[in-house]
């Protein structure tokens, strides 16, 4: 029976939703709230559809579509759910954000929805050209979202840097595809995995070079050291909801691709192991170092995102390819996404007009004025720092235990050490919020949708930790 459409339904819902939003943006009279509500509706629908694992049975955990161009499994299904949820919460925070920052337009929601559709495609893609197209869909939308505030010089600088570097990364990816195709005559992950596990990675210089190009382009997107240099400026310059969106949805999608590429066959991972190991170590420490030195909240979160990527790399190294369920990666991604989105939703609401509150000190004494917001932010920060009883802690624990059981003792230890280092910058905000006096009334004109987001996400962070079996 042909049930491709069932598997791709969420993707089509989101894509067609994006096109409808684009049509909608041709009408000037429509209010932003309508577009936001529509996109929230689209995401909610797609999420619900994705929630039901139709067609995926125990017998058939992995279904390939279009001659193996796409594949659907429980891994892609849950990754898609995380991404869709990210889109949903971003749309909700964005409307709160645009109440206080006067540069929103209808296209924003269309572009964001397009980005989500590209990400959904990324999770399922089993073939380089499809990955490339999906990657372009995502990148292009995100370039624009980053630079959405045209009047802000920082924002413009950020988008310029991101665009130029991203163009290089995209170019590498295309070049990598060409080299891989030249070497193998095929661009499917399955063919690549078969070739590498048969002859080894270095057997053919073109294949090795091409694959490295592709990996580097993906590493660029998830800010692995030394491809991280754009992230702090770009996260800082982008509008807050966009930063949250990039940090969560984009990372989830790319990590899913990396998992698909690296873990497809047990042996292919072995060829990367050394390189991945060193990159992981460097990523963890570069991220921590950069984060410790920051005074701006967004910049700190950007740098801490590098550290989280490091943890995900540990997970990628540690999970065994033979019985790959990816639950360790997914759990961490979900935990991380919930906390990060939560904090950005709170910031969307609290940062005020023109993002005037962005330093650690700007949030001094928040607990006095807005105790509920401060409590929510605390939960998110604790989760990111990996302190119980939050989802972040369980995620880190899960990764460290997996790494350890996989025999990667050094990585497990480094993961722990990095967790200690990271406490410094997460707790700084908590200390500022609770232990300092307020000299600000934290007035905000944002709508209630962002606080609602934060509330839901805070519950998610705790619930994920108490009932992790759900993932």
């Amino acid at each position, binding site marked *: 029976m042909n049930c491709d459409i069932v598997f791709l339904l969420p993707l089509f819902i989101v894509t067609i939703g994006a*096109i409808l939003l684009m*049509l909608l943006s041709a009408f000037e009279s429509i209010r932003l709230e309508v577009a936001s509500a529509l996109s929230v509706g689209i995401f909610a629908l797609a999420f619900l559809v994705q929630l039901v694992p139709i067609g995926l049975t125990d017998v058939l955990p992995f279904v390939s579509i279009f001659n193996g161009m796409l594949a659907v499994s429980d891994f892609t299904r849950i990754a898609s759910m995380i991404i869709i949820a990210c889109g949903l919460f971003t749309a909700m925070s964005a409307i709160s954000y645009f109440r206080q920052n006067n540069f929103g337009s209808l296209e924003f929601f269309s572009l964001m929805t397009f980005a989500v559709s590209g990400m959904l495609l990324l999770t399922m893609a089993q073939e380089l050209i499809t990955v490339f197209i999906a990657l372009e869909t995502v990148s292009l939308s995100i370039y*624009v979202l980053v630079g959405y505030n045209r009047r802000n010089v920082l924002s413009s600088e950020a988008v310029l840097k991101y665009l130029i*570097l991203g163009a290089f990364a995209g170019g590498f990816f295309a070049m990598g595809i060409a080299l891989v195709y030249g070497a193998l005559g095929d661009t499917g992950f399955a063919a690549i995995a078969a070739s590498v596990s048969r002859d080894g990675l270095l057997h*053919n210089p073109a294949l090795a070079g091409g694959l*490295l190009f592709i990996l580097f382009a993906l590493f660029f997107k998830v800010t692995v050291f030394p491809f991280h240099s754009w992230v702090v400026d770009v996260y800082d310059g982008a509008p807050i909801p966009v930063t949250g969106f990039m940090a969560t949805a984009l990372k989830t999608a790319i990590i899913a691709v990396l998992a698909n590429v690296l873990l497809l066959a047990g042996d292919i991972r072995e060829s990367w192991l050394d390189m991945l190991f060193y990159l992981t170590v460097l990523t963890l420490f570069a991220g921590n170092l950069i984060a410790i*030195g920051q005074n701006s909240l967004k910049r700190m979160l950007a740098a801490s995102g590098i550290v989280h990527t490091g943890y995900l790399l540990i997970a990628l190294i540690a999970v065994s390819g033979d019985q790959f369920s990816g639950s360790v990666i997914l759990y961490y991604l979900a935990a991380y996404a919930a906390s990060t989105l939560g904090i950005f939703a709170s910031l969307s609401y609290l940062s005020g007009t023109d993002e005037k509150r962005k330093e650690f000190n700007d949030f001094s004494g928040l607990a006095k004025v807005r105790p509920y917001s401060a409590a929510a932010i605390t939960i998110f920060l604790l989760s990111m720092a990996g302190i119980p009883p939050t989802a972040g802690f369980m995620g880190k624990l899960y990764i460290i235990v997996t790494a350890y059981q996989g025999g990667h003792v050094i990585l497990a230890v480094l993961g722990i050490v990095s967790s200690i280092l990271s406490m410094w910058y997460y707790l700084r905000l908590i200390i500022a919020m*609770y*232990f300092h006096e307020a000299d600000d009334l934290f007035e905000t004109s944002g709508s209630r949708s962002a606080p609602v987001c934060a509330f839901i996400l805070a519950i998610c962070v705790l619930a994920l930790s108490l009932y992790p079996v759900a993932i």
Partner: protein
Amino acid sequence: MNLLFIVLLPFAGALLPPLAGRLGREAAAWTAAIVPVLALLLALEPLLAAFAGAPMTVGRAWLPQAGVDLILRMDGLAGLFILLILGIGLLIILYANYYLAEDDSPGRFFALLLLFMGAMVGIVLSDHLLQLLVFWELTSLSSFLLIGFRHRSVEARQGAKMALAVTGAGGLALLAGFLLLGRITGSYQISTILGMGDIIRAHPLYVPTLLLILLGAFTKSAQFPFHFWLPQAMAAPTPVSAYLHSATMVKAGVFLLARLFPALSGTDPWFFLVGGTGLLTLVYGAYSALFKHDLKGLLAYSTISHLGLIVLLFGIDTPLAAVAAVFHIINHATFKASLFMAAGIIDHETGTRDMRRINGLWKYMPISGTLAMVAAAAMAGVPLLNGFMSKEMFFAETFHLAVLGSFSWFLPVAATGAGILAVAYSARFIHDVFFNGEPVNLPKYPPHEAPRYMILPVAVLVGQCLIVGVFPTLTVAPFLALASAAVLNGPLPAYNLAVWHGFNAPFIMSLVAMFGGILLYSRRHALFALHDRLFWGIEAHLLYRRVVHRLIDGARMATEAIDNGSLQRSVALLLLAAGLAVLLPLASGDSALAGDLPISAVDPVTLLGALLMMAAALATVFFHRQRLIALIVLSVVGLLAVLTFVRFSAPDLALTQLAVEVVTIMLLLLALYFLPQQDRPESPGWRRGRDLLLALAVGGGCGLVTWAILTRPATTIADYYLANSLPGGGGANVVNVILVDFRGFDTLGEITVLAIAAIAIYALLDRLCLAPGTLYGVRPRWAFERHSLVLAQITRFLLPLALMVAIYFFLRGHNAPGGGFIAGLITAIALILQYMASGITWTQMQWHQHFHKVIAWGVLLAAATGLGSWLFDRPFLTSAFGHYDLPLIGEIELATAMLFDLGVYLTVVGVVMLILATLALLSRRCVETGRCN
């Protein structure tokens, strides 16, 4: 089930005090007090079960993939600790009710206290290592909040941070240790692990495991050299200190030692590490306590010292010593909690804790004074009090160490020395505070007796000290036996809890300690002077702070160095990585660079084309600051690429490339209008040299890799497509069939990307007004004539022709070079020409269409075509096709793929026009608003 509720109750109960706090402090305190009372009642049943020798266990799966389960078990040790945690917790809550100041928020205080209580209960009840760790970190966190409760004070904040940093970091070391332990035993369940002591001790990983676990325990229990956080934590409100540093927080470390005693003890590393650390801490703490002028500082160091004593007892590693350790845990908890509370009363009533000012308080507060003195005597180890009994056991155990050989005299001597110091500081506590003349310059004068209910908790605890000291067998004996049996996980040694053991060596040591201590205290003035001369400025916490500051400065500097936000540097890094990516596999020597295939002959035309292309590319780089020239040379590169496609017989690609080339160059030319026409070079020479090298490396690497491809036999997928294109897709033009059928899904993605690009440009440029570019700050002169009449006429004539060509390409696309994409581009070029020749106003008058809609309908049409095939239960984008005879034109093929192509066509036209219109509007809007002139 009971166990689960005991753990959950404090956590759930923590929600109540903040609510009750609105009704006042009393309400908050009473709701908080209900929690330990209820929990104690709940603990009765499991406690009886433990006495009966059948510990209660509850288990739940939590995160089974990571091996984390929720398993609670209450054996004797856990039961004892539960009694301490809940019992002393209850007293602390009653005490705090009177202690808290007006501006302390009672709701928050009691909520945090209950949170902490829950975490402690969780630790002692855990039967799973990782779960224990969760609660362990929770205690670090909640104690952080408790210590920093008075957040206005700098000391409180710093003390809280330091406590969290040290104990939190220790907790993570503990995690590593637990993981190792789990690896050795294959289980994380504590009750299982306890039975596997021999396997653990024989394992090669035993020493690292032990080290890591001890690191966790020692940081928590403030053992030297990790002790420094505890005195700093004295900035907490006194009830917090009384709770955390008597029965709970610091006891978590020794609890862990007790818990894992059967699994880890009994080796030389254990003896030297645990015993050595304990001894050092015992002596160091006792010594430092003597010289503290702050009442709580003295108690803090004495706590460190007593914890050292307990650790040392575990280190001595005999069953009797373990019993003594458990006994001292109980005793220390009772007398230290009462002492802290007494110190709080004194602070509360006098307004200071400086022992140089609070003198002679006994006549002002006789009841509190008497209680405090009894507790201090217990701390010193005076007979008939509980501290005496465990100290006697300790002294007795110091003699049983064969390991030390001829140095076996050392331990008794050191123990006696510590005993002397303990007596001395206890004497100081009693004498300085309650006697020693009159109070000096008190902030609150005269001091009064504390409220009755503040004294009550102290009295209860001091009463215990007395009763246990006088009637040990009637009171504490069963609990001690129960807990010790759990610690030893085996039979109990024979011991005698009698008050009087006869005139033996331990008693002599006690006597020496007693008189030596009093003597030492009487000589205190000389001693203080000596201490000040010898040990000024060595403060571990200052060292810690300096290290932390260094680290942060280092991090800032490193950030500056590796991440200064320079785009050039980022690009250079990226290229460097790329260069390595292609060159490393070549250098690794695993395979030869060149394959076996010979190089085919090169004809002069191709060679010329290649050289021309290289020259044009170089020229683009060279002229990149003169934008118009650069653009023209760039178009040469593009056109040569078109010729390359032609040379290698790819007419479809050539056509597409040609059309794309024209459109992009045109749009770029339009964009050029807004850019400065030239700018000056800014990079220094060395940087350009570096960039050149990088570019050469990457380019050369790519060239070499391409060489590697071309000299190897290629497997190609062309045959498959060639064979299946006509029968499967109904088209002879394989490229087009691939686009609209085989890989139609990708094409759909591709036109979506186009659509995104268009609205992206629209979203970014909409309502924006840009001034035309300048040349060295001067606006250049553009053409005199705005719209050339000749050009306008020709283009109007060209439009229908171009449209005809577009339709032609569109229709034949399925079987010959052409297709929706090319047709769209050709249409777009024709339309662009109209704009350029006749001006935007005229063109938009002729055709006012919203391009958003065109794009959206295009993508929708393509998607709908694709989805349509599913309605017929065929794979996505399978085309149906048929051949029809039309009059005049001849046979024509209609396929559903053509609808898809139509979608592509609409999108392409819409995108190009939207970009064009947006760009054009930029300058017109400028003129209209006049803002930018």
